[in-house]
Each structure stands twice: as structure tokens, then as C-alpha cells.
């Protein structure tokens, strides 16, 4: 489908414009790094939203395709000697395959059981990565375990500017792709499956196949973000497979507004830049993410976007009178209320 309504408005363009201008106004390497990481995490949060928001499959193991792609990049470049572009492409395909596997396993399950299954799969991968040193590189160095596995990159020290703009370009392209997918015919069916699986099935929808599709697509984008992250830090580590990372993505989506793709991106950027920019220790950041999630779920269960929609609906008091747009949505891509 051709609806990309949020990209029609001026807000996203203004936001991207500001981000394009930012390095020129404040060329501080620390903040450039914070933003670069933020762009990759934002793409990861949007990929969680494809699975957990659009199609309603709450996953707590979304770090698995992210980390799998990061490790694949590291192993393929450092151990197998593959050229970087080929390694990245293979890593994304691997992440999609991991997603298809998770989707196949979780398809017969619903609700909390999907969360528990994905949590278990993610933790198995994380523990395997932390506890095992699988490979030995040249010179007797141990690879794997806590230290992770380094990537062999065709450059020595990437310019922070270049990294910043490459990550921003990736975020824009990935978000656009995920938004298009969520607004496509398949995205509509996934939203139906999320809303009422039994009605979707009674409408002829093979729901297991569509759940698998959601995991595959979401994981492919998560893998692309994971590969990008590994390129940025030059190493794949067990943290890339951690529950903390999956939890962060779910928090970004819940705070921004599930099922919207763009809102989790904005929430990820704001929260990451805020918490990371303040140079808080990791334990304090986790606590703040948890508190943010608790406050959101208690007081704003629809996230920022859902709350704003409800407020706008109450203020306007024009329910059901909104003029039609494509697919029954108004110009902002919302269902008319």
C-alpha cells in the first residue's frame, strides 16, 4: 500500500533536518557516539514494534536476532574472512531465519506464553554466549565469552561524523521500510491477528503463517540494526543478546505507543540520549527504564501517541465525523474516531 502518511507531514522532516544539522553545530565526539548508538537502538525498537506492536506478539527475546546478526558479522569477517558487505547480508538473512524459527515455535502460543518462550530462547542464547569461549583467533587470543568477538573491518578508525550520518541514514531507511510494511495488506492482516485471532481465522487468515511473517520481518530489521551496532563498536558481545536489550526495545515501544513504528523510534532517541547523555551508570539506566515503563503502563497505557489521540478525541468531540483518507485513515494515518 502506498500510505506513508507520517512522512507526508512536516514533523518528521523537521526532526530529520535537526538531526542532520546537529553534528555541524556540536561536533562533540561523545554526543555523536550517543546519537549514533541511539539511531541503531531506535531502529531496533521499531523492529520490536513490528512484532510486539503491529502484530501483538509480545516478545522478550528480540535481542536474539540482533545479537545473532552481530555475532555472524564478527565470525564471518574475523574467522571466515568474508568481505564485510557479504557478511552483513548473510547476518541479516540469518537474523530473518532466526525470526522465522521463533515465529514457527511461538505460532501455536498466545499472550504471555509467547513472551515466556521468547524470553527463554533469548536467555539460552545469551548464556551460551557469556559462558563459552568457542573460538581461538590467531596468536592464541580467546574469542567469545564476556569479551565477545571482534570484527575485522576494512577501516581503522571510522570518523564519528561518518558513523553518525550512516546510522541516521539507516534509521530513516529502516523506519520507512517498516512503516510501509505495517501499512501494507500484510500489515493490516497482522493488526487484525493482533486484535482478534479467532475473527481473523474465521475470515480465512492462516494466522500461524502471518505470525511467522511478523517475526521474520521484525527480526530481519533487528538483525540489520545488530549488524550496524557491531560495525559501530567493532565487536559482538554477549550484551547484544541480553534481556536488558529486549526489555529496552519493549520499553521504547510502550512509551512511544505500540503499533505505530515512528513513536518507538522517537521514544528510543529521546530516552537513550537523555539517559546516556547524562552519563548515568548502567544499573541506574536500567532502573530508570523500568520506572519509565511502570509509569507509562500505569498512567498512559497507550503510550504517548495513544494518550495524545485520546486527548485530541476528547477535546475535538467530533467522533466518527472525520473525513476519510486512504484505508479509512485520516491524513495522520489514524483510524477515524
Amino acid at each position, binding site marked *: 500500500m502506498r500510505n506513508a502518511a507520517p512522512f507526508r507531514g512536516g514533523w518528521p522532516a523537521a526532526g530529520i533536518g535537526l538531526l542532520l544539522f546537529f553534528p555541524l553545530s556540536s561536533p562533540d565526539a561523545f554526543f555523536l557516539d550517543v546519537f549514533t548508538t541511539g539511531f541503531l537502538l531506535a531502529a531496533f525498537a521499531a523492529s520490536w514494534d513490528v512484532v510486539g506492536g503491529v502484530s501483538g506478539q509480545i516478545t522478550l527475546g528480540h535481542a536474539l536476532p540482533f545479537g545473532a546478526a552481530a555475532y555472524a558479522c564478527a565470525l564471518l569477517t574475523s574467522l571466515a574472512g568474508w568481505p564485510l558487505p557479504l557478511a552483513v547480508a548473510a547476518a541479516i538473512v540469518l537474523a530473518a531465519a532466526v525470526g522465522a524459527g521463533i515465529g514457527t515455535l511461538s505460532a501455536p502460543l498466545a499472550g504471555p506464553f509467547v513472551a515466556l518462550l521468547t524470553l527463554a530462547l533469548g536467555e539460552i542464547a545469551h548464556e551460551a554466549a557469556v559462558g563459552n569461549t568457542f573460538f581461538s583467533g590467531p596468536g592464541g587470543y580467546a574469542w567469545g565469552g564476556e569479551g565477545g568477538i571482534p570484527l575485522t573491518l576494512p577501516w581503522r578508525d571510522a570518523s564519528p561524523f561518518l558513523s553518525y550520518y550512516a546510522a541516521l541514514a539507516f534509521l530513516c531507511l529502516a523506519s520507512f521500510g517498516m512503516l510501509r510494511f505495517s501499512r501494507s495488506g500484510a500489515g493490516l492482516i497482522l493488526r487484525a491477528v493482533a486484535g*482478534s485471532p*479467532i*475473527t481473523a481465522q474465521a475470515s480465512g487468515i492462516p494466522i500461524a503463517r502471518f505470525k511467522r511473517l511478523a517475526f521474520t520481518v521484525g527480526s530481519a530489521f533487528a538483525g540489520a540494526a545488530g549488524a550496524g551496532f557491531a560495525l559501530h563498536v567493532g565487536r559482538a558481545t554477549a550484551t547484544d543478546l541480553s534481556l536488558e536489550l529486549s526489555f529496552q526495545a519493549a520499553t521504547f515501544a510502550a512509551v512511544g505507543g505500540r503499533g505505530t513504528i515512528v513513536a518507538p523510534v522517537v521514544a528510543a532517541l529521546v530516552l537513550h540520549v537523555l539517559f546516556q547523555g547524562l552519563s548515568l551508570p548502567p544499573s541506574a539506566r536500567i532502573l530508570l527504564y523500568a520506572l519509565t515503563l511502570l509509569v507509562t503502563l500505569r498512567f498512559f497505557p497507550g503510550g504517548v501517541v495513544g494518550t495524545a489521540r485520546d486527548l485530541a478525541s476528547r477535546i475535538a468531540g467530533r467522533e466518527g465525523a472525520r473525513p476519510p483518507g486512504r*484505508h479509512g*485513515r485520516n491524513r495522520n494515518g489514524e483510524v477515524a474516531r
Partner: protein
Amino acid sequence: MNELLSAEGIGKSFGTTRILSGISMSVAPGEPVGLFGPNGSGKTTLVNILSGLLLPDTGTVRFDGKEISRLPLDARYRLGIARTFQIPHPYPALSVLEAVRVALAVNASKRKEDDGTGEDGGPTGDLLARTGLFNQRFVPCARLSQGCLRRLEFARALACRPKLLILDEIFSALSAADEADLTALLRAANRDEGTAFLLVSHNPPLLKSLCRRILVLEEGRIVRERKV
């Protein structure tokens, strides 16, 4: 008689409770059939087995000459068996138009004729107009009245151009106007498109007015069959 749907020896138990015992029945192409019975007689269980929501413990279900006993709900819909639910389960975040488009999405050829706006007289627009939902096409399903939800159920069921409609208590708790509208819709589908239906209801006058044959279910068995 030529049979569209036939069930032979259907049995179903939940734990130690026997719900259905050796049910055999059939529906001919274009035939309007009623299913009547007291609460707890097994009507919904039988409907769930015929539509693919439940699998029978014993017996077989055939449709259009094919054995479909193990086919799930979605596959039977694509074959041409559409069902409605006694309690509708709407998509909370989707509009009426989107809900109908989901049902139409299973048939790619139907979708290609349609620009998706529901305003071109294509399948979506036709279906919405037919079921009286056109003016509410942008309303979220979660905000529909009971009558409109039943219309939406009907629109969803008709989207696959079914050969057989299985309607579970679709007329319960409706206003007189909504009941009259849905009755007219059902008659039109049966008369104009030759759609057979199996209508489950507690309302004998309604069944007599709509059906040619009424099956009476009691304690998991068909105890009577009455021609109207």
C-alpha cells in the same frame, strides 16, 4: 440428494462429559436449514466442529465431496464455509472498512478490483452498502453497537462468497429493525446467490420463516427433523 455439507457419526467429549453423540446430518446446495435446541444441547459445539474451530473425536465431515474433518477454520472459510459467532470478537484497532478488507484479503482477485477506499463500488464498497455499514466504514469496530457488530459479522462471512453460511445465534439480542434487516440480507443471499445456510436459533417462529428444514438437537443427539 446432492449434499453440500455432510456429517457422519460426529462425537465430541470434553473430559468425561459427552457433548455430542453420533450426529449425522447434511445440508444441500442452497438449502436453508435451521438448528434448534435447548441451552446445553450441543448446538455451538456442533457448529464449531462443522466450521473447523473444534475437531471431532469421532466421525467425518465432508464438504463439496471432500473430506474436511481435520481442516482448520481458516481453510474451511477459503473453501466456502463461513461462520459467524454468537458473541462477536471485533478487531478493536481496526475500522469497519479495514475489518471487511481483511476478510476480502484472502481472495486476491477480489482485492485487485478494489482500490481499498470502499467508495468505488468494488467488493468492499458493495459489501458495506449491502450490509448497511457504508456510513460507518471509518468507525473503529470497538465502538459499534451490537446490531452493527452483527452486520459486520455478516459482511465478514459474505466476503468469501460462501457456499454455506453457519450462523450461530446471529439474531439474538437485536432490535426489531436490525433483525428485519439481517433477515432480509440472509434471504437475499440465499435467493440471489444460492447460499445455503445453517441457522442456529432459539426462536422457532424465526426458524420457520427462514428455513426449509429444522433439526432439533437434544442432549447431543438430533432427535427430530422437521420440514417446513
